[in-house]
């Protein structure tokens, strides 16, 4: 790196540092509020809502710490982190999906070939291949592998489910670190901030939907799909986090209204991502995808919204800013 690039990288990490200091302040405030709510309860009474809130906030402390450490180490750590997130999400997804003996090899290919290869290609920034690896190559090769199992029982269903899981958990999620591979004129060395922008808006949308829903939620949206989501939560949450996105314009290559519109778009997508994966959970008769993250459920419960918004965000930036 030249001196100039060092300086740019330095300024970049300062903006990231500022955001993380802000996040810690928000978390401190949240933990304080949760603590006060707990203290105000009558003695000997426990509230499941406050317990869940506390464990959610504690999990946020852990998640933000892990993200912060990955950002601090650099691009490779961020890619490895998201590869792990994909791995865990795919693991949870396939664990509750019907497959048979004949899919064994296809599953091995998913976990030990396509997943690492996808993230490896992102690491070397080979857009031409990472953008088609799973939609084209995995799409054709996995059913071939499954036919070699010589078992036709529910064949199309099995092949479709494996491909769908790979798309959601690996392909879509991998578009978060793929942002590092974009070359945006005037924004060199700062791509990590795009990741921060995406994650902050989408995840804050989830948080604000939860908060608005708990405080003002009256009208259930579609209880057959998600019993806890309300119209008030959706509108309040999406709008609030779009404002958060607009207010974060200074870490992005966008101006304030562009940041707001993009944040709105990814939040709406994120909301429906949660909805689609809820529909699958209801169909399978499960409440959460796993139990890895205390208070939140599994990894896939936390990244469902990210997986739907990341590819679109990636292509918006790639189309208009590159």
């Amino acid at each position: 790196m030249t001196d100039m690039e060092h300086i740019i990288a330095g300024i970049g990490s300062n903006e990231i540092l500022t955001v993380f200091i802000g996040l810690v302040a928000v978390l401190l405030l949240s933990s304080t509020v949760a603590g006060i709510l707990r203290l105000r309860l009558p003695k000997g009474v426990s509230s499941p809502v406050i317990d869940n809130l506390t464990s959610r906030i504690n999990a946020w402390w852990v998640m933000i710490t892990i993200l912060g450490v990955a950002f601090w180490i650099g691009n490779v750590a961020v890619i490895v982190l998201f590869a792990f997130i994909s791995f865990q999400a795919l693991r949870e997804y396939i664990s509750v999906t019907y497959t048979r003996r004949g899919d064994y090899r296809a599953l091995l290919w998913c976990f030990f070939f396509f997943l690492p290869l996808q993230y490896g290609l992102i690491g070397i920034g080979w857009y031409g291949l990472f953008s088609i690896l799973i939609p084209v190559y995995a799409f054709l090769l996995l059913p071939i592998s499954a036919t070699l199992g010589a078992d036709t029982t529910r064949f199309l269903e099995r092949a479709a489910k494996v491909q769908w899981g790979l798309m959601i958990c690996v392909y879509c999620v991998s578009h978060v670190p793929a942002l590092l591979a974009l070359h945006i004129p005037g924004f060199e060395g700062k791509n990590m901030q795009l990741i921060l922008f995406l994650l902050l808006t989408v995840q804050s949308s989830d948080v604000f939907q939860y908060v608005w829903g708990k405080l003002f939620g009256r009208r259930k949206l579609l209880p057959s799909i998600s019993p806890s989501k309300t119209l008030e939560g959706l509108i309040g949450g999406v709008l609030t986090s779009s404002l958060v996105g607009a207010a974060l314009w200074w870490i992005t290559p966008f101006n304030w209204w562009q940041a707001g519109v993009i944040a709105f778009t990814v939040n709406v997508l994120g909301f429906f991502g949660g909805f689609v994966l809820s529909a699958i959970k209801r169909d399978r008769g499960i409440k959460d995808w796993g139990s890895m993250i205390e208070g939140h459920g599994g990894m896939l419960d936390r990244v469902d919204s990210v997986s739907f918004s990341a590819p679109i965000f990636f292509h918006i930036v790639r189309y208009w800013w590159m």
Partner: protein
Amino acid sequence: MLEKFLASAFCGLIKTLTGARPNWRGTVPAPQPRVYFANHRSHGDFLIIWALLPPALRAKTHPVAGADYWLKGKFRRYLIERVFRGVLINRNVKRGDDPIGAMLAPLDAGDSLIVFPEGTRNQGDGLLPFKPGIRHLAEKRPQTEFVPVWIENLGRAMPKGGLLLVPLLCSVTLGEPITLKPDEKRTDFIARCRNALLALEPDEQ
């Protein structure tokens, strides 16, 4: 010493790789002699049950395993005899074999067994027909508790013939213990055990 170390290493490994936790749905860990009977789809089946028992019970629980497989090779033999301390039986019973006697000995010593009444690994869904072994055990020792144990996903993670482990999340569910009723018919007892085990299977997908 080495045996104990290897045993904890195997248990730790399978628990880490499968993320499995025991779900004591119909019973609690108890020290009396029991026969844990489970669905069988993977080589790792006995190990995952064994690993998820509390250590005190694990030391007194013996997997029942096929001699034809485990006596091939010195290391296998060492593992099953010294590390897992299994009960070896011939699956093709020859004249002079006494598989029931071999299984009764640990029960009489106050220990427990892990058995797979299907007799072989199932490569499809559901359960294969049960072999009569558990009925013989129940007749000889009617006070023994038979605990159904459903293992979910391990058969997909490492099926028959597979060498690598697909990193699926597995679960082990232990149901309500069954004891032989007085005058219960041979086939009725086996059917009751089989249905109790099937009832533990998560929803048909």
